[in-house]
């Protein structure tokens, strides 16, 4: 079945088709239409779930962790300030090994107030132990929501589906809605095993650890995050077999023979495809790499894809004050282990903060600058800023 859906409604469809059992959520622009849609779906009997209308995002995540500990499939959605408020509980969800799924609509940080898109909210959660899956279009949003449950539950790690505010959340696209029974075969009900609050098997979870035990718990998270790379690939492949759409942690587009490779994430990927096509028509040797996962970071695939390239231009719709864009940091870090001859020059660009458009023109100018400059003139270059 095909429908025209916004990104937010696509998230709600993903959660509904995943037979989510508990939703705990709090309104925040531009996420709100996700939880509105879920409320309507519940009222219409399309999904048999318990809906906790909590008094804050912090409580939303706490309730999801509780629901997951009770053995239920739990979901919430938020963005920007809401995700910042949740931060403590994001760490908690990982430590408690609760496979909660969260949809985050990328919204820039206040102050000053803004509701527009950038990735500062989600990249700020890099160290929380959440799997982060960035989406380019609304079909990917719906499909990724379903896959996120499967990935999270098989690893007992929480997963975040990330979509750009407005560019996806409030923009409609024709979407293929997967068949519900097929989704049920692909994603069976959540089986918590013996890791839940079972009155017939009373156990204590999350109790105090001494310095002879804590590190082992953390190591298990790291071990499973490393395992997650293979799990995500398997889930992508299985999804492709069933539904005919293939996703990648690292997707190269026209990159094979490219001298300059532009690395992007989120909706900038679809704009970049157009930019690359236009530049290719003009005979430019340019390609693109789209990154879907920030965590686990697909280090090996990145090295394989970018090895031997001359120049890599990374567009970060986020930045870390006093350092650089986050994707640029990650890629520099990964590529350092290449021998010098294979190591590309890294051109880091900061663009599109607070929802400023990253148009085809902007991407073309980034390409031209990268091509022209023998070396990057700064560790990060800010695009389109009126310096005052």
């Amino acid at each position, binding site marked *: 079945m095909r429908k025209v859906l916004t990104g937010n409604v696509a998230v709600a469809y993903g959660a509904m088709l995943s037979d989510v*059992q*508990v939703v*705990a959520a709090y309104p925040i622009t531009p996420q709100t239409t996700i939880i509105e849609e879920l409320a309507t779906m519940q009222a219409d009997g399309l999904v*048999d*779930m*318990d809906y*906790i*209308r*909590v*008094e*804050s995002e*912090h*409580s*939303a995540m*706490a*309730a*999801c*962790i*509780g*629901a*997951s*500990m*009770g*053995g*239920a499939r*739990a979901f919430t959605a938020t963005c920007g300030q809401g995700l910042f408020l949740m931060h*403590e*509980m994001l760490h*908690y969800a990982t430590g408690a090994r609760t496979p909660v799924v969260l949809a985050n609509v990328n919204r820039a940080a206040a102050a000053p107030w803004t509701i527009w898109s950038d990735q500062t909210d989600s990249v700020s959660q890099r160290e929380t132990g959440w799997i982060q899956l960035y989406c380019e279009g609304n079909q990917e949003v719906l499909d990724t929501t379903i896959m996120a449950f499967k990935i999270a539950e098989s690893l007992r790690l929480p997963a975040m589906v990330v979509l750009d505010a407005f560019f996806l959340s409030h923009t409609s696209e024709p979407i293929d809605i997967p068949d519900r029974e097929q989704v049920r075969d692909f994603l069976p009900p959540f089986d918590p095993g013996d890791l839940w*609050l*079972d*009155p017939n*098997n*009373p*156990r*204590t*979870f*999350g*109790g*105090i*650890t*001494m310095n002879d*035990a804590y590190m082992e718990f953390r190591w298990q998270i790291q071990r499973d995050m490393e395992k997650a790379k293979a799990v995500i690939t398997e889930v992508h492949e299985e999804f492709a077999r069933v539904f005919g759409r293939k996703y990648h942690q690292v997707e190269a587009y026209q990159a094979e023979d490219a001298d300059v490779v532009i690395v992007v994430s989120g909706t900038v990927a679809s704009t970049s495809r157009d930019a690359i096509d236009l530049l290719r028509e003009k005979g430019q040797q340019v390609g693109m790499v789209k990154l879907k996962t920030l965590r686990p970071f697909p280090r090996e695939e990145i090295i394989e894809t970018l090895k031997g390239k001359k120049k890599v231009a990374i567009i970060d719709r986020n930045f870390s004050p006093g350092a650089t864009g986050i994707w640029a940091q990650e890629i520099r870090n990964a590529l350092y282990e290449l021998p010098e001859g294979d190591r590309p020059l890294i051109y880091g660009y900061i663009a599109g903060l607070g929802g400023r458009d990253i148009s085809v023109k902007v991407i073309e100018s980034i390409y031209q600058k990268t091509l022209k400059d023998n070396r990057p003139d700064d560790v990060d270059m800010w695009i389109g800023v009126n310096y005052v």
Partner: protein
Amino acid sequence: MYSLNQRFDNRDIPEDELLTSGNVACAGCGASLSMRLALKGLGKPTVLAVPACCWTIIPGAWPMSIMDVPFFHCAFETTAATISGIKAAYRKRGMDDICVVGWAGDGGTFDIGIQALSGTAERNDDIIYVCYDNEAYMNTGIQRSGATPIGSWTTTTPVKKPKSEQKKDIDAIMIAHKIPYLATATAAYPHDMIAKLKKARSIKGTRFIHLLAACPTGWRMPENLSIKVMRLAVLSNIFPLYEVENGETYRQTVLPDEIIPIDEYMHLQGRFRHLTSEDIEDYQKMVDKRFEYLKERFEKGETSAAK
């Protein structure tokens, strides 16, 4: 001495122990005794969520635990939200008979956890929230909380500048949420406490139990005085034992035959030692005034019960 006790017999106290010996509480801990008695009242199947508080430590460090019921250590300010989530999961999984209990200290309830608690109570989620109130942040080493009584010494309100604000009236706040059941209790009156937890279990919706739990370490008194001091709190009317249904019907459950002066309660505790006789007189007035407020409601409750 008090009327309710006469209707009970020690044989009414369930023999089941839902926790084992070997906990690591301080000697004379009112909070550990409270848990033992509360679980007797609650029975099985019961599931507990406990935030950062003394009870994080009391059950023992991983991999040891004294608990014979499932026990989830949750984040400090999230007790109420966590149990709302746990209950929702059980409801969806056809396990609605499981009693989900949040068990938090006064800091986790009066202060950092009050937002989530208010949310859960406003939604009337089907949970029991127990606050064991030892009147300061005892687990971190006796710092002032919103539950600390006025005039009290703590490590953040030193003797030269003791706490200058009133104890927050958490019961009134919870009553204002019109929850189906609220009760105060203390381990010094075990029959009363167990009866209230049993009753709470039989009611649907948000139930709030406020336990006064003596802390010899923080109250600066010998550990053998815990029960006595908790009893004196009731007999002096600083912590009357009562219950309120639907935010309206008040009932005093333990009626002391004789009210003792507040000084008898306070002079046993080092945390009040610096107070002058004038301070104690003011204290007495404050306690009397507060009790008058409640007494009016108890009388109204009796009248409506008689109808």
